[in-house]
């Protein structure tokens, strides 16, 4: 499988959605999905997943899922680098399933182990009355598509409230990136690698 002139590079991601920190809520589960550009295609692994419901331990504040991620992408172009979108749900006081947070983060560029903590947020109700009724009815405002949080477009119309944090861990392996002229590993910081990548684009 080793060719001198690769047409695509591979990005292998494995890791886990380790834990979350939502101070006020309990019994939460999370969903994840990946958002990536046109030039990307998953070759193996699960693109979407939904975790078990987890409760806080006695005395501990974090909710642990340890939900594994394992996916391999192939791509021809670093533009549209995959992002993971995590959305967390859980029951409210009336037992209705409501959203507790949305968050997204880019898959790290550089090979190796990375731990990311992403802040989570939920859209706000448009008015106090709405807020009250949505609380009463258990129908909180939600994003029509969780993938919205991975995009910049259309965000200006929303107001959000931050909710908590989710910690993710990634182990990244890339293949043939360098052969295609994209250098993500350098002795300098990741930032310089980024600029170089964008120049290559």
């Amino acid at each position, binding site marked *: 499988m080793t060719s001198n*002139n690769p*047409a*695509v*590079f591979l990005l292998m991601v494995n890791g886990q959605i380790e834990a979350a920190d939502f101070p006020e809520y309990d019994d939460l589960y999370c969903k994840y999905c990946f958002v990536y550009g*046109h*030039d*990307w*295609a998953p070759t193996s692994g699960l693109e979407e997943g939904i975790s078990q419901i987890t409760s806080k331990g006695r005395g501990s504040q974090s909710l642990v899922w340890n939900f594994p991620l394992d996916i391999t992408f192939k*791509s*021809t*172009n670093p*533009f549209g680098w995959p992002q993971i979108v995590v959305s967390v749900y859980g029951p409210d006081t009336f037992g209705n399933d409501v959203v507790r947070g949305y968050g997204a983060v880019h898959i790290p560029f550089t090979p190796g182990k990375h731990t990311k903590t992403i802040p989570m947020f939920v*859209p706000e*109700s*448009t*008015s106090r*009355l*709405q807020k009250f*009724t*949505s609380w009463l*009815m258990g*129908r909180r*405002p*939600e*994003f*029509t*598509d969780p993938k*919205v949080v991975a995009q910049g*477009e*259309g*965000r*200006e*119309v*929303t107001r959000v409230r931050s909710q908590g944090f989710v910690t993710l861990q990634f182990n990244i392996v890339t293949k043939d990136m360098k052969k*295609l002229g994209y250098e993500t590993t350098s002795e*300098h910081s990741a930032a310089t690698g980024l600029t170089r990548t964008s*120049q*290559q684009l």
Partner: protein
Amino acid sequence: MTEKLRAAKSKAASLLEQESIIEPASRLQSLRDRDTLTRFDRDTDPDLQADEDSSFAARLKFRDAARRAAKDKRAEAGLPTAEEAYNFFTFNFDPEPQQQRRKKRQSRRREAELEREHEGEEESEARDEDAPLVRDEEEDLFIIDQSAQDFLEVRRAEYIGYSRRLQRERETLFVPSMRPVPASSKLPENVRPRYLEEEGLYVGERPHVCLTNQNILENRILKQAEGRKWFGDDGCIIALPDPIKESSSRPPLFHLEDELDPALQAVYRKALKTKHVNLYIAGMGDPQADYQLDVDVSGLIFSHHPLFSREHVLAARLAQMYDQHLTRQHKNLTRLLTDKVTQKCASKTKLPALSQVTQQRIAEYKHEVRHTRQLRDVEQEKDRALLKSIIRVWKELKALRDFQRFTNTPFKLFIRREKVDGEQDEQEFENDIMAEVSELEAEAEEDYQRKMSEYRRQHEEWKSWKRKQKALKKKQKKKRQQEEEEEDEEREEELGEEPEKPEPPEKPDTGDLEEQVREKAARIRRKPGEPVLIPELTVSGPITPNEQCPRAEFARREDVAKRALFIKVLYNDKEVSRTDSRTLNMDFRVHFGQIFNLKIVNWPESIKLQVFESVGSSTSQLTEVCVPVPESSVLTGSAPFEEMEFSSNQRVTFNHEGVGSGVPFSFEADGTNTQTLLTSGKLSCCVSWAVGEDDVPLAPPSSQPGGGMYSGHRQMDAIACIGASGLNDMKKLGKWAAESRLDPNDPNNASIMQLLSVVSSGDVAVPEYFRLEQLQEEFNFLSDEELQRSRRFRLLRLRSQEVPEFRHFKCVPSMEREVSEKVFQDYEKRLKEGEIIDTKEHIDAHRALVAKYLQRVRESVINRFLIAKHHFILSDVVSEDEVPSIGVLGWNLFKLAEPKRPLKPCRKERKKVTAQNLSDGDIKLLVNIVRGYDIPIRRPYASKPPASAKSGRSFTEPFTAPVSSQTPQQGSEWPFGQVTPLVRPFVEVSFQRSVLQTSTAEGPNPCWNEEIVLPFSAPNGDYSSTSLQSVRDEVFINIFDELLYDVVEDERERGNTIHTRIERHWLGSIKIPFSTIYLQSRIDGTFKVSTPPVLLGYSKERSLGSEGGYDAVRSLSEGTFLSLFITIEPQLVPGDTVREKFDSQEGERLLIASEVFEKEASGRFPKRPCLTTVIDINGKTVFVTRFIRPLNPPQELLDAFPNSPQETAEVVARYVSLVPSLPDSVSFAGVCDLWSTCDQFLTLLAGDEEEHAVLLCNYFLSMGKRAWLIIGIAIPEGPTAYVLTYEQNRYLIWNPSTGQHYGQYDTFCPLQTIGCLISSDNVWFNIQPYAAPVRMSFDVSKPNLWKAFFSRAFPDPGLSSVQPEGLVYRHTDRAVAVELQDRIEKVLREKIMEWRPRHPTRWNRYCISTLRQFLPKLELSGGREVAEEHRLELQSLLGEYRISGFPLHLPFSEIRPIIEAVHSTGVHKVEAPNVEFALAVYVHPYPGNVLSVWVYIASLVSAH
């Protein structure tokens, strides 16, 4: 020497002393100055003097003065201290006029109080000291016999009555009124208020004061004596414009640290200097990279200094001239030019004078030689003059030295004589002179020749004039005898024109020329044989020692010795270092030789060197020299020293020999010929980038934005590249080079020539434009051409532009070579197609043009839409439940009491799904076919003709299938004759190539009640609402009759084998576009099935229905009907139409009114469409009534039925319906509804229901009918436009796209809701409780039923129509129609054969020719009256065959829909082995290129 030094020191000390004496004097002076100032004040305003004084004092010593002032007598007289005044003013916020006066007045009062206090204190103190009380007490202490009663007096409590108390209070208290004070009381009597503003003076804006407060204050002031003083001339309180201080004068509050919350306490951190100051060098992020500038200050030479003696001045001049001489010598311009002249002369002579070109060349050479010679002469003259002046100055210098009897400067000039070979020199000189003379002669000769020719010409003219004159004179002589006077006049006139007789030019004098040349040569040149003089300046001369000098000179030298100089180095206007101070030498040269290494962080903006001169302890800046920031290629070691000239304009005079600077002095004894020299000199320095240890230049990379702005420019600046920065106008340079005929061989010009060659060859040019994003180029990682060329980048760009072909292109290859050209083929083809009209596709060239035009409109609209698509609203991003209103809550409560399973359940609204996360197979189309009505039945054998053929049919009857007597043999064609039911219909639904059908029912009114689920897939898998809206697919619902034929050949098998062939006969169809379903989300109702006018073998079921009851009502509208319910599962949210603000030419008021009207309407009746403004094809908002205007229909149609207006109306409606309809929602995917005017509509020959309706309405209006446009909702179209007419006391509703019309009470009228009516002058909105036409009144004059847009409150502004005055119809060529007819027929035949790949297709020519004759008759009758006899004829002629077929009628737009329609009938599916087909096409042309297409298709099966 030491003595001298001491003397000098003592002198200096004395000088210093003097200075120190002077200084206090100056201070005194300044004080005195101030005094005069106050005195001046006093003069003008004596009242203020004291105040001024005190304030001055306060300024000097604030607190002291304050205390002193308190004791001051003047202060006692009622003047405040500054402190008090300050306190007073900070506490008093009243807007007060004229601060000074107020200050005085207020302070006086305040002072009085203070004084009183003081007095009180003093008194008490005095008492304390004297202790008088104690003394009294001591005295009193002895009086014991008096008891307490003696001191106390018991009395009744004194009561003061309320009224008395009030009275008393009134005496002492005063409550100012809040009422405004009349102006008269504020001003002195008989004075009218004077307003400065009105007089044009500027009056500042006063701070706002509450009016009641102001009134209170005014009242209070007036109460006092002299209260009026507080008021100005305008009767207002005198106030400064705005006395409020800009900054707060309140001292900040200091808290004790303990009181502070520990969390809030400030933590001290040492200040860190941010590295990232703006302008830092990019790439400074890593600390290793440091940049170093080396500033080498080598020395300073004064070309003039105030301490120069006269000799120095001369010496400096001499040196300067000598330098000049040397540089000239070095360049040796004279020699060069002389060589050039000789060379040119030589080349001139070499050229053979043959052709015109060489002549030209020679002339040019001549000119050049002359020019060069002139230049040489000038240079020679300069050389000579320089030499002369050097000698003169030297002589002057010598004279001066002699005169003053001492020498100051070491300059010595030797003049070396170089012997020359006299004869040769003479020869050369003579040659030169002769050459020049000859040249001049030639020139003069040329000149002469030219003048001669000119002269000859003039002479000739003169002569001819003379001749004429003579002839005239002769004539005149003859005439003179008759009329003398007139002639006289004439003659005079003639004479007036006489030209002067030209003088022949003088011959040039050659002898004179030679003399001139010789004279000039003598002036500017060395005489032949004269030795060459070479001056040599040396500095070896002895300088007279100090002792031998006169006193003045000695003083000067002393002064010079005292001077010292140093240089400060300023980097970005900050002093970074300075040189050591060096004393000034006698030769006025200072050597520093210091190198400063500047490690820099910030970008170099400026490097300055400041020259300071110090005399003793005082220093003064002489001058400042700016050094340019070096280019990054200028490195230490290789950079040359630069000499910066500087000068200073300070004035210095001395009383010794020093000439000073900036002051006139003279060399002459009598003081004439004065000169003024300024201090000037040259600073020799070098600024360069340092080189690091490993030979790496410590310069910032040159691609960095050096100097911020210019580097982008510099890249393009070729001159900057070769080092001559500053010259950057290449064009000018090139022009100059061409004009000045630069010598390309001159080494001085080498760089310029090279540069010019670069410029002319390459396209390196300085852009003439101003670039907004000058750094853009820096960030481009590819040049634009490369970007254009690369297929990969092109692909990426097209994708990001959302070009339809590439919008969903996945995985653009990473390598250029992997992108094939094929990718772009489709796209390029489409681009090309825009220009070429493909007539093959469209058959008709005109329609092709229209299609192209529509395509372009569509594209522009879609582009607009794409932009709008990227604007989101909240509901696009966040899904949120609506707040339930009280009504809804109540309804929900009410619903709780409802039965759980009602007998007649109604459909519930489903949750809507946004079409974002959908994929193929998720969306399904549900078609519920409920039942059918009046399906045609097979022609029974011997049943008698139904009577209904002539039953109460009105003119509305569009469809007739009259049944006449049947021949008995016909019956034999149906094998199951009597036993089989009348018809066995089933419904087939086809959508997106998937075909499903219901089970077969029986009878003409079947009930299927079946749900058909069809999958839906969006184009390109794009399920966004945009792409869904633009789906052009249609749902075809066809009704077929299923026929079973027994094909068992053998009678014996009949017992145990059933062998039948199923045949299906098309009966009718309904087409529903997907976009309608999508936009309406569900379609529910009974639809009319479009059936062919003639169905061979079938007849309408009539006899079964009784004449009365429901059927009677139904029979009013003839036709077959189908009850359907269509929806999409899951329900999709239709994309919102983009509410774009279109510009408009309507008045603002009208637009607002229409907005309000529409808003009100939708508020009251949200389900009724209301339309007041529409968007025309240019994208402008137009008021809707402008579209309504009577327009003439084609005369041909009016002439068709001259006697029957009703039939004419139908013909017109039919004509309108023949214009193909193209829903806007398909062409302009959900963007907007565009309205085109009738002429545009008829030109485009495609339009929406609105356009049809407008055209029809306009036709009706011109025919004299009362007609309105109905905006309403119909099935299946959804929101649409119909036409309402009023005739014969009843209202008729016309469907413009089918040409059908309905009575108001027609149950099957597709129009369900009527929103508003539009006429040419008004819009009425339906405010009746019901919107269905059956249940409402159309009387628009009733305001409680119809709300008019233009009412008495808002009358019609008289809107002109956008429609043309009349329509012009082109007569459609019959031949074109015939040609089209043939082509369609050919295409259809080919298609049918193509559809039957497994069977041979045979055509029955006889039948075809019969059908062909039949079709024009159908057209003539409008498809209503069937030529029954013809059909019979057909039947009889084709008696052998079982025939089934029908004519199809279509408006013509393209050929594709015709093929579709034929295909959907399924005639080609007949698979009987002996089947034959017949196909006939007829195209009937109507005026204006409207074509009506008839296709008759039939299948014939041999009866045998």
